[in-house]
């Protein structure tokens, strides 16, 4: 069921599963889109309750159109994965059938997949059930007769973050870029990217908030990964910078600073000014020669 909420002049569309009433001081909460809770009160509503109004329009007929509209949003689609029996298992999307997960993990057909929670009361899952990996993506397989029985009381799920295909588990759904790097024992200057299905992956800064529900799959790139190899007097030299001074090139190649360094450009020898800084290109060739040549 789709519900459109008119709220402070803006409209929000949510797919509701159930409405949870709460008679405490905590604002009313609504469970939608697979169980994620959304409190509709805001601080502004507390401060100025007279402005607080909510209209609810229930739209069953227009559901397809609204869904299609929401899928066209500009938000990139995150990659998802699970840990099953301590193994990294990529998932096709966030919501996935239990059967698919079991097949991908190579779980024996007679075994039951169980969602691993942070305490007791793990949740056994049926084969034809669709699970939302955002509600916990750590599972184990167990014989059907040993599967835990539902108690209705569920602890916080274990959440597996993946960096470079390596999982680390946490009970915190909200981290920072710094916390993720530290969780995986990376240096803080490592470039961390959230992996999306689209090519525009997002660089995660140290203070950026990293929400598990936005996608748990990341990868790293090392800083100073720029590697340019040039040839100087027949030998290869590797530089981790886009440019270098002529003096620097000479020093690296053990060329006397008084000598002339020439760069080969389209088979033409071009002498370089001693004070020049040049852009380095991979595969470039340099040749030096002494300056004390003379006509006789």
């Amino acid at each position, binding site marked *: 069921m789709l519900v459109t909420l008119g709220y402070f002049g803006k409209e929000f569309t949510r797919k509701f599963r159930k409405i949870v009433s709460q008679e405490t001081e905590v604002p009313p909460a609504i469970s939608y889109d697979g169980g994620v809770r959304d409190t509709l009160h805001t601080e502004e509503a507390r401060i100025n309750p007279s402005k607080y109004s909510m209209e609810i329009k229930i739209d069953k007929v227009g559901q397809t159109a609204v869904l299609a509209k929401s899928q066209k949003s500009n938000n990139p689609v995150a990659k998802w994965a699970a840990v099953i029996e301590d193994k990294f298992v990529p998932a096709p999307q966030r919501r996935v059938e239990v059967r698919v997960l079991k097949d991908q993990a190579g779980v024996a057909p007679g075994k039951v997949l169980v969602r691993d929670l942070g305490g007791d009361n793990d949740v056994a899952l049926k084969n034809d059930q669709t699970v939302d990996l955002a509600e916990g993506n750590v599972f184990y397989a167990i014989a059907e007769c040993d599967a835990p029985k539902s108690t209705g009381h569920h602890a916080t799920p274990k959440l597996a973050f993946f960096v470079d295909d390596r999982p680390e588990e946490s009970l915190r759904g909200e981290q920072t870029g710094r916390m993720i790097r530290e969780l995986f024992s990376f240096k803080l200057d490592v470039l961390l990217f959230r992996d999306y299905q689209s090519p525009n992956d997002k660089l995660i800064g140290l203070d950026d908030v990293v929400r598990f529900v936005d996608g748990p799959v990341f990868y790293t790139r090392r800083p100073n990964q720029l590697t340019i190899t040039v*040839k100087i*007097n*027949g030998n290869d030299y590797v530089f981790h910078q886009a440019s270098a001074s002529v003096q620097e090139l000479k020093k690296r190649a053990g060329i*006397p600073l008084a*000598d*002339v360094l*020439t760069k*080969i450009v*389209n*088979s*033409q*020898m*071009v*002498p370089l000014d001693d004070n020049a800084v040049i852009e380095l290109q991979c595969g470039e*060739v340099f*040749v*030096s*020669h*002494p*300056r*004390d*040549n*003379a*006509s*006789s």
Partner: protein
Amino acid sequence: MYPQDQVDELKGLYSGLRLIEEAGVHYFLMPNVLTPKGCVPDKVDALLCPSARDGYASRLFFAKQVAGPRPLNWNANGVRIGERNWHAYSWKIGASAQRLAQMVSSHLSALV
């Protein structure tokens, strides 16, 4: 013979590099060498003699005389090597130019 890495380096600079041997002397023929900017002609066949000859530690011959920004003493003209006539200017290069490509570079610096 010359070390293969030096020959390969020169071949990388001048793709049509050929080795000529005449009277026990090795020469490297480099077709269509681009002369430094401002020279005429802008490309010319060149022949490197990397061993001592005519009182020079090495020599670079050209199929045609090249006019550059400064006058040069073309003291070898019509020298017959490999059934072609060659020309060379008087130019002594530093002893530290040991590699073939360094020799070519040193000789061409006279045209800059």
